[in-house]
């Protein structure tokens, strides 16, 4: 009973975090702040939702698969975000809110 309540709260909160993160992706002013907003959906949203599903699954193979999905997101999402930011910076995408940078000093 208590596990049910906790898992429902976690699933709904995870969905809310996903919506907030992607809403930030639409509303934020430049690329790097959009990337910051998108990371919310990858960490809090995915983590809470998988935790809620894990409580529903109990001790079984399903729980192992859910943990594998969580570990996959946990390791690949920062990697992809890092590579994306580095590629965007190498291609000269400037942060909108930062002071202007001298390109010769990069």
């Amino acid at each position, binding site marked *: 009973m208590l596990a049910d309540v906790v898992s429902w709260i976690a*699933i709904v909160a995870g969905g809310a975090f996903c919506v907030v993160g992607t809403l930030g992706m639409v509303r934020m002013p430049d690329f790097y702040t959009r990337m910051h907003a998108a990371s919310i959906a990858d960490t809090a949203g995915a983590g809470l939702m998988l935790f809620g599903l894990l409580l529903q699954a109990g001790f079984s193979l399903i729980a192992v698969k859910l943990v594998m999905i969580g570990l996959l997101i946990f390791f690949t*999402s920062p990697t992809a975000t890092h590579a*994306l930011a580095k590629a965007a910076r190498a291609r000269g995408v400037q942060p909108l809110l930062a002071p202007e940078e001298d390109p010769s000093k990069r």
Partner: protein
Amino acid sequence: MFAAGALALLVALALALARAILGPTVFDRLQAANTVGTVAMLMLAVIGFLTGRPEFLDLALVYGLLNVVGTIAVLKFFRYGDLGEPGEPADEAGRRP
């Protein structure tokens, strides 16, 4: 309750898709594609629970693996111009910029 989570994930998918359509640079679109991939993984997991068919979790795992490989491959393409060769020569220490 799984239905509420699935609905929230659908809204998140729609918003990420809006950014993929609006995005001024290619990196915005790539970030949106990455987010769509993550949310689609969660969506597959939730649908598996919603319909009582946990086999969908295997689909979510495979989707996640393909998603990260696709993102890194496209990024490498846009950074170096091709996928096979290093775009810039390595220095003496073997590092690439």
